[in-house]
């Protein structure tokens, strides 16, 4: 057993670090998803990594992956977090891409994969519906075969950044007569197809992050079906357990704690920096210790993968603890700023700077918004159900 990195790994880290230092524009550094207002903001860093060949470390080499070891991927993620690079939108790279290269046909691979890598196609995810959240299999959006097309009718919801999307991957019901899981098909749908309407949902912090997507007699060519008709649930499940590394968000949370410490060092309580008060110092220590435990849980998972195993349902721990920690950090940050949590960051004009110290701006909004982390992507209750069943055998 050994915690240290090999000389080769250290050299790799150096290469990553200097690449980032050289290519990350100052205006993008430290900008989180919520600060990125335009599509261009999002794609800028994506394209930089694409040009370097580093945009899809998880993909097999033949489709444009990097062929890195588990440890190298870990180092890459750490360095990105350290440098506060903007996040990459996962819907193409981490979600539909792997489905296409695993279950798609040659034509689909050729058509879609390069444009995902290059950022030419922006994807969004059509899973949830108003009546189908945690119980995804109860989805009702219908697709009826009509010659060489499917005609899709129904509604998806909580569709993140659909307003920017060129394509949406959808679970649709093609056979309502069988068990819910069995009659589902996985379709790739061009967002420009007539009959698609996108309506914004404003979330708690006043931001347009998610949408409703309506389908009204939308014609989808059969060649845009992934795999077999009625087998979509298999591909969807694959996506749910596929590669959860990064889902824990350890490196990002470390950075967030660093920021929290800075804020709490500036805030004074009776002349003492908040971070030096017994109670707050302990609370920060507690979340940091939790995060250390999670980091090693993730490392153990990665090590098991590297030894040829693969991430099992235990990795639901990474989702549960990861989101709990992210939420806790936003909660402590809200606490740290005191009264300056009050101003509504979205209540100021576009060219007007909100009141309060820079670090305090929007902390309440971030806290409110982060409540989603334990809801989306399989709620933490669903994750607990998975562990109870698949790991504990209950």
């Amino acid at each position, binding site marked *: 057993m050994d915690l240290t990195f090999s000389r080769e790994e250290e050299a790799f880290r150096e290469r990553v670090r200097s690449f980032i230092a050289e290519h990350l524009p100052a205006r993008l550094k430290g900008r989180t998803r919520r600060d990125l207002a335009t599509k261009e903001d999002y794609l800028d860093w994506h394209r930089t990594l694409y040009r370097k060949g580093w945009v899809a470390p998880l993909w097999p080499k033949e489709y444009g992956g990097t062929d890195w070891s588990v440890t190298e991927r870990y180092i890459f993620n750490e360095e990105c977090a350290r440098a506060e690079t903007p996040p990459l939108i996962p819907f193409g790279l981490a979600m539909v891409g792997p489905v296409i290269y695993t279950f798609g046909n040659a034509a689909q691979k050729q058509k879609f994969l390069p444009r995902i890598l290059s950022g030419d196609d922006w994807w969004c995810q059509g899973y949830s519906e108003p009546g189908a959240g945690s119980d995804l299999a109860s989805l009702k959006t219908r697709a009826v075969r009509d010659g060489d097309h499917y005609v899709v009718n129904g509604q998806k919801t909580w569709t993140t950044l659909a307003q920017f999307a060129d394509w949406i991957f959808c679970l649709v019901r093609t056979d309502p007569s069988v068990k819910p899981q069995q009659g589902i098909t996985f379709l790739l749908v061009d967002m420009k197809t007539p009959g698609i309407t996108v309506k914004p949902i404003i979330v708690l912090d006043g931001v347009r992050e998610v949408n409703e997507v309506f389908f009204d007699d939308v014609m989808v060519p059969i060649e845009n079906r992934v795999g077999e008709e009625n087998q979509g649930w298999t591909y969807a499940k694959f996506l749910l357990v596929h590669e959860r590394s990064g889902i824990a968000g350890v490196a990002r949370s470390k950075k967030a704690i660093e920021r929290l410490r800075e804020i709490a060092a500036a805030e004074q309580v009776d002349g003492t920096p908040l971070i030096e008060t017994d109670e707050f110092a302990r609370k920060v220590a507690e979340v940091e210790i939790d995060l250390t435990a999670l980091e090693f849980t993730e490392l153990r998972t990665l090590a098991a993968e590297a030894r040829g195993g693969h991430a099992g349902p235990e990795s639901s721990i990474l989702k549960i603890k990861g989101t709990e920690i992210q939420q806790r950090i936003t909660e402590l940050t809200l606490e740290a700023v005191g009264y300056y949590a*009050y101003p509504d960051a979205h209540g100021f004009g576009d060219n007007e700077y909100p009141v309060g110290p820079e670090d305090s701006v929007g902390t309440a909004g971030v806290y*409110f918004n982060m409540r989603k982390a334990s809801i989306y992507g399989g709620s933490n209750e669903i994750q607990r159900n998975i562990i109870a069943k698949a790991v504990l055998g209950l």
Partner: protein
Amino acid sequence: MDFAYSEEQNLLRNSVVRLLADNYSFETFKKVSRGEPGWRPESWKQFAELGLLGAPLPEAYGGLGGGPVETMVVMEAFGRALVVEPYVPTVVVGGGILQSAGSEAHKQEWLPKIAAGDAVLAFAFAEPQGRYNLADLAVTAKKQGSAYVLNGQKSVVIGAPFAHALIVTARTAGARREEKGLSVFLVNRRARGISTRDFPTVDGLRASEITFENVEVPADNLVGTPDDALPLIEQIVDEAIAAHCAEALGAMRMLQESTVEFSKTRKQFGVPIGKFQALQHRMVDMFMQVEQSASMTLMVTLKLGDSESARKKAASAAKVQIGKAARFVGQNAVQIHGGMGMTDELALGHYFKRVTMIDTLYGNVDHHLKRYASLG
């Protein structure tokens, strides 16, 4: 020992609940909180007509002659309806401070106006450097002839954008954070030298950052004893805390009840989610938190007139309970609502925001735990 409302209190309760049901829907809240001027003078007039604005004020000055219980009744109802109008700053703080420490002239001038809905007050007590320490003041008031001259900055003064006058805490003597040396002033909101930056708050209120630059305040506008106002400020803040506890209680009841209702209709896996035991137990814990908060709201309300140390302990204990409950109830209400809990269009999220911000107001859980413990 008696925990029953009097006949008058029951009447008050019924009438405020009815008024809000008829006139203060969630749609109203959204429209008012998102538009200008950020409050609804028409509602304020209705509150006045019903006697709410004078509920805890003496009858001699146009009030109903009630006390903390009446305030509790009003504020719990306001919490249920997400009322944005500045009741606590105007009636509880403004009315309260003038009633207990104002001169006869102050009372005659202001209390009837407050009760009639003709005066809105705001309480300028927080400062950028002071966090929750009421004595950590950098705003100074220096006596010059027959006036005091105020300088400095106050933060997040709720209701200030539409206030006629400000209740301002300032240092007239002593060093920063010293207990002695504080005074309270009644300041015309339009006085020369006051500049404000108005803004909306995350929970739908309006507030201002206020800068005082050589603002001259007539010495007559000093309220209470000069240089020794901390006990008065603490008393009034504890009364405001009790009022906000009641507000939070009303809001938490809505969060808890609407979560239970939602869980009965929302189906997943073919059954209402309220049938899942893990969620049931969570909702029971929410219910218990709300009931414990109701108990503490009652407790602090009935102890506001006790000895100083009993009152302080009561206020801090209640604020701790409410702050913890708000977090637990709010977070779980959103969680159980799932995606629906995250939308800005549902009332739920706004209750969550309101109770979250009440934890911050006048000191959060940590602050009040420490204060409680320090009282031995």
